[in-house]
């Protein structure tokens, strides 16, 4: 068939020529640099913004943390340690912090980092016109909340540059988490001159300036953010990586293939379907990291029969959490019998969770008894219960498991209701549900980030639950007991009330499975705040 063959040849060669032509104009944006000190990391998502005042997401925080440094920085073992500040004094009443800044700190454009840069950065985050969603992270500072809520002005915010290298801050109440917060993105300094000259400085690599270990050189949205070592960083001599590339391809199966064929050497989101297999195969690239976050179910306490604490307790006691983490989630999560996850310091420096212990035990017989006491012996007369969850991850599988357990153990009828993310958020906040899945990760390393969620009318309560004793304890821990060991006792007591009244039931404490090549050394994957810290990272053998 000569004619056909000719046509086929013509076709394929034309296609090949076209490909070559396009290749010529495409440019090559993935060629790896000659240095082997390169990390190609997939944070899983395109950052929403790299403006430290506005960023809220985890990928955003991770990338900003590489480009910026606050007064403090979390060290390898997870404690706030000197960053741009070399030391600090805290007044005896724990309300005034005086930070002493290093004199050799510079921005990535060579400008010196001064105390005024911090004042500028914090006031900018608080300025209502900036419309920062995380402005409340600065509300510990006197006058900050008023300024952000347009009830005061910038001059009323108690942060001032005493001189170029001394910054003084006054808090409204003692806040043990404040020192750690100074490493958080919302509290980053800004190079005021650059920000004034270029309003959109944070939207592209052109004018982006940071004072951290790495410097952004290019940013192609939904593709790649390239960083190199920042030569002006005060400790540049100890930054070993030459290139740090954030590959923002979103599909986790694609990332997995990219990791397999070498386009990535570190991936944060491992496809759920691969987790069990990777774990079973003892793959040296696969690691499961602890995460300070809790997976839990909310109960709508405004609705019958969930308004009865005995019903909520019965439901909580009739779940087999061990089975959920071994058979469904499969990534070494810990069954949770309390709300605050492990990893938070208690008054004496020991673990808050360990001291508090478990607040309840799974017990089917007891659950059936409670249900009977509530007026539903053997599940009789119990109305159908619906579990609301959002699409994605393995929320559906978890819900199915719990549905089966409740039906079997309590003989009640349970239906599943799956919604797209925004519809789910909307229904949850309007209390338009019976039982709803939820997750929570901390804003800062102090148990209050979990404990103040369920105060009466709290924005993140979303259960309709209200308890005056609980409210009083939280209030006390935040004001009169703030900064003293008594605050921890208050929080333990509040957690006990929460776990007895059960407007929520914890299911498990999260973990984070990651894929990272063993030759990547000193990459810190902390349990909260950022996905990974690259300041000390290097590629070894």
């Amino acid at each position, binding site marked *: *068939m000569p004619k*056909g063959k000719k*046509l*086929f040849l*013509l076709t*394929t060669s*034309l*296609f090949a020529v*076209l*490909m070559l032509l*396009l*290749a010529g104009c*495409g*440019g*090559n*944006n*993935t060629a790896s640099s000659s240095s082997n000190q390169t990390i190609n990391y997939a944070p899983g998502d395109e950052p*929403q*913004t790299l*403006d430290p005042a*506005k960023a*809220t997401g985890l990928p955003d925080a991770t990338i900003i943390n590489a480009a910026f440094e606050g007064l403090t920085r979390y060290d390898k073992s997870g404690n706030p340690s000197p960053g741009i500040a070399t030391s600090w004094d805290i007044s005896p009443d724990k309300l005034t912090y005086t930070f002493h800044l290093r004199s050799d700190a510079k921005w990535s454009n060579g400008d010196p980092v001064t105390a005024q840069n911090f004042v500028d950065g914090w006031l900018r985050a608080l300025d*209502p*016109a900036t*419309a*920062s*969603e995380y*402005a*409340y992270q600065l509300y510990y500072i006197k006058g900050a909340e008023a300024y*952000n*809520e*347009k009830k005061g002005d910038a001059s009323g915010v108690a942060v001032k540059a005493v001189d170029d290298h001394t910054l003084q801050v006054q808090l409204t109440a003692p806040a043990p988490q404040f020192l750690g917060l100074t490493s958080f993105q919302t509290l980053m300094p800004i190079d005021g001159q650059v920000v004034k000259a270029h309003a*959109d400085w*944070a*939207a592209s690599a052109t004018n982006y300036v940071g004072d951290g270990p790495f410097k952004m050189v290019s940013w*192609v*949205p*939904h*593709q*790649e953010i390239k960083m190199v070592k920042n030569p002006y960083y005060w400790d540049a001599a100890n930054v070993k990586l030459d290139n740090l590339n954030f*590959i923002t*391809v*979103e*599909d986790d199966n*694609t990332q997995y*293939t*990219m990791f*397999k*064929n070498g*386009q990535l050497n570190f991936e944060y989101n491992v496809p759920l379907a691969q987790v069990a297999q990777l774990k079973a195969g003892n793959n040296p690239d696969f690691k499961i990291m602890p995460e300070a976050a809790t997976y839990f179910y909310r109960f709508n306490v405004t609705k019958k029969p969930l308004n009865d604490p005995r019903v909520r307790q019965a439901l909580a006691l009739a779940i087999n959490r061990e089975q959920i983490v071994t058979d469904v989630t499969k990534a070494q999560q810990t069954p949770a019998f309390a709300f605050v996850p492990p990893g938070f310091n208690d008054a004496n420096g020991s673990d808050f969770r360990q001291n508090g212990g478990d607040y309840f035990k799974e017990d089917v017989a007891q659950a059936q008894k409670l249900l009977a006491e509530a007026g539903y012996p053997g599940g009789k007369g119990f109305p159908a219960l619906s579990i609301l969850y959002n699409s994605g991850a393995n929320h559906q599988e978890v819900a199915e498991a719990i549905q089966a357990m409740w039906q079997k153990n309590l003989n009640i009828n349970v239906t599943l209701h799956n919604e*797209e993310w*925004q*519809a789910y*958020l*909307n*229904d949850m*906040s309007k209390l338009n549900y019976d039982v709803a899945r939820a997750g929570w990760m901390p*804003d800062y390393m102090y148990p209050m980030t979990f404990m103040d969620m369920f105060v009466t009318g709290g*924005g993140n309560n*979303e259960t309709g639950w209200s308890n005056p004793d609980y409210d009083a304890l939280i209030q006390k821990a935040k004001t009169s007991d703030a900064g003293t060991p008594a605050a921890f006792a208050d929080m333990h007591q509040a957690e006990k009330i929460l776990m007895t009244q059960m407007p929520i039931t914890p299911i498990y404490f999260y973990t984070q499975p990651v894929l990272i090549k063993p030759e990547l050394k000193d990459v810190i994957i902390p349990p909260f705040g950022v996905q990974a810290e690259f300041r000390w990272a290097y590629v070894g053998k």
Partner: protein
Amino acid sequence: MVKYLLTRLLSMVAALWVIITLTFFMMHIIPGGPFATERKLPPEILANVEAHYHLNEPVWKQYADYLGSLVHGDLGPSYKYFGRTVNGIIRDGFPVSATLGALALSFALLVGLATGIVSALRHNGWQDYLAMVLSTFGFSVPNFIVAGLLMYVFAYWLGWLPAAMWGTPQQAVMPALALAALPTAIIARLMRSNMLEVLQQDYMRTARSKGLSERAVVWRHALRNAVTPIVTYLGPLVASVFTGSFVVETIFGIPGLGRYYVSSISDRDYTVILGVTIFYAAFLMFMNFLVDLAYVILDPRVKLVDRKEL
């Protein structure tokens, strides 16, 4: 002719306006909003944010303001990606999607047309059967399966091609093929049936009886007539492959426009939803318009006149 063009332009503007209006109000009806998050914002902060984007104003005013800036070619800021504008998103994403689309389209045309012609000329021969089996695959296997299969074989298993991202010719191969699979199959089938039909026509017999060589008969008389229906299909095809595919671009990590058709809706990124919808609609209408113009050239019986002039 001028009158025809004017009427056509006016009807396109009217259709666009209807699309914009429907999209605008439908997206405000769906629950949620661009700043609803799992971590609830304090009401004062939400007020700051909504004021910043004028989302605190009545919907009719937002609609009027939107139309006002649209007239000036301003599609507004993205609510999800701070500091980026919808114009910027389209400016960055469209060239990438269009390049990929051009590759896929050339493949689909070259391979699809050739396959269709060969099948028709070798009707009921093994070439015909093979081509039709392959095109059935192209038809029925969805592109995410094609994409996944390609990636599994060439990136994961054989390691010949990079798994994802954009910029080198190697990176374009798999997404272009995945995107081309369906149109190639459609074009092959269309071309085959058109050719079969044309080959039966009286004028083909006339041409042959005049003593023209088989080659001349096929190339000069059959092809030109058989290709016209393909042109009709080309309008919407170009519009859809040039503006990006959500599935293919997501799987292969292509920074094109395709992802925004879906992600903007789940993000409730109102301006982006509107922006990409308008862009796609306008592009589609323009392509269909070009198709109509092409008829004039391809088929001497077609003239562009207003109906009343007939």
